[in-house]
Every structure is written in C-alpha cells, then in structure tokens.
C-alpha cells in the first residue's frame, strides 16, 4: 500500500496548505474594512482574454507563405492593485469559499484513503464520499467557468490598451465534467461493492 501512503501524504499536505490559505483569506476578509488600498500594495491577478488589433499590432510573417495573420483569443493574467475595499472584501470572500471547498473535498479523499489503507475499500460511507468528490469536481468546473467569464467581462469593461481588444471568454472544460461523471459511476460501483461486502460478512 505504498502508493496509498504516498497519495495520503500528498493529500494531507495539500489539506494543510488549504487550511493555512483559508485562515489567511479569513484574516484578509476580517481586516478588509481597514485596508487602505491606495497605501497598501495588494496585488490582484485577473484572467483576461484579448486579441491584437492587426493594423496597430501586426504579426510579422515568417518566410512561410501565409496571409491574414493575426493573434487572436490570447489568454493572460491582468495584474493590478485595486483601489476599492469592496473588491478586496469580495475577493477574500471568494477565496474563503474556494479554500473551504478544497478542504472539504480533501477531507473526503483522506477518509477514503484511510479505508483503503485499513483494508476496507468497500466501507458503506465510501460511495457517499465519492459522490461528494464528483459533485465537488463538477461544481468547481462550473464555478471556475463562471468566474473566468465574469473576470474577462470585468477586464473588457474596465481596462484598455492600444492595439489590444479585450473580449469575454467562456472556457468550459468538458473533460473536467466527464471526470466528475466518471467518479459518479465509480461511486455506484462502490455502493454495489458495499452491499456485496455486507452480504458476504453475513454469510456464515
């Protein structure tokens, strides 16, 4: 069970890191009413999507024969220091929700791994834990997509640069959703396994 031990160690470290970040986010939210953005460098990074305006930002053409070359749908992080306490507080609240969800999912994984290491893979609670992990994966992808879209929309509405056209982006990762659905199927298999294990334990 060395692999399980290694994975359990990784998950424990990740959980501890998530708890530390959760506490720091809580402190940021608690102290946000006293944060004076103009005098404190609070760095923000916002996902942004843009295209370069060909007439003002032409792309040099290599010896390869090509026409109408343009740089489109570029993805970047927009770094800035906000001058708004509400934005700081809202971001801290968002981080709290993110890290709390991460701690919750990692707790499910830890409990699941514990049953594996103690030789009880089909413990009755594991099916429920796997379902929760699946919902966490699917929910995280949906929230990430929504936040990404809102961020690119915010960047488009509030920032400008010569030759750069900001646009919104819907970056929906179907693979993540499929992974969540696969975990749901595995949860069904574990539920059946728990039933068979219980039946087997009561077979004399």
């Amino acid at each position, binding site marked *: 069970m060395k692999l399980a031990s290694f994975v359990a160690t990784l998950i424990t470290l990740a959980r501890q890191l998530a708890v530390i970040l959760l506490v720091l986010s809580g402190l940021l939210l608690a102290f946000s009413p006293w944060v004076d953005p103009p005098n404190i460098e609070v760095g923000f990074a916002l996902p942004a999507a843009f295209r370069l305006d060909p007439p003002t930002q032409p792309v040099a053409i290599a010896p390869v024969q090509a026409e109408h070359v343009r740089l489109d749908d570029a993805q970047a992080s927009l770094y800035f220091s906000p001058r708004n306490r509400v934005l700081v507080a809202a971001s801290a609240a968002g981080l709290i929700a993110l890290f709390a969800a991460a701690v919750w999912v990692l707790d499910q994984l830890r409990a699941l791994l514990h049953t594996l290491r103690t030789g009880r893979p089909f413990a009755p609670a594991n099916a429920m834990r796997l379902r929760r992990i699946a919902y966490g994966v699917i929910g995280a992808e949906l929230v990430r997509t929504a936040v990404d879209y809102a961020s690119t929309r915010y960047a488009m509405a509030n920032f400008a640069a010569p030759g750069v056209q900001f646009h919104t982006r819907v970056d929906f990762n179907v693979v993540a959703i499929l992974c969540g659905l696969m975990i749901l199927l595995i949860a069904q298999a574990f539920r059946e396994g728990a039933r068979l294990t219980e*039946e087997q334990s*009561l*077979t*004399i």
Partner: protein
Amino acid sequence: MAIVVKLDHLLLDRRLTQTELADRIGITLANLSILKTNKARAIRFSTLEALCRELQCQPGDLLVWAPDEPGDRAGVAADERAPV
C-alpha cells in the same frame, strides 16, 4: 428472514456448548451467534455440512421455513427475483 436456524434444541440434545460447536466446525463464536439468532444472510454449504456432521442431523433438522410475518413473504418474493 423466513428461514429459521434451529440450533438450540440440537445443542441441548448433543450436550454441546456454542463455543465447542464453533471450535469443531471452524467458525468464530460471533458468527455462530449470528447464525443462531437468524441474522445471517446466507450459509455456505461447507458450513452446513460441518454443522450436520457435528450435530449428527439433516439440513432439514437445522433449517425451517417459517413465514409467519407478511414481511417474510415479501422478503422471500424479493429474494426469488434476485439472481443466485
């Protein structure tokens, strides 16, 4: 469960304790207790064979079908639908 395991009078007749019987047939006392109190879901043929051997009886002496409660009939019907 409509199948009842009749162990008590057999143990009395053969003058055996549960502990002795469990040791002879190679199961734990806890499992024998599960069997005796009708909490078992299934019994292996090897266990049934060992019980009949030690108690000098037939399977029909040990296992009795007693559908006294309406739930027992529903349980039996459900089991009949389940694959063997």
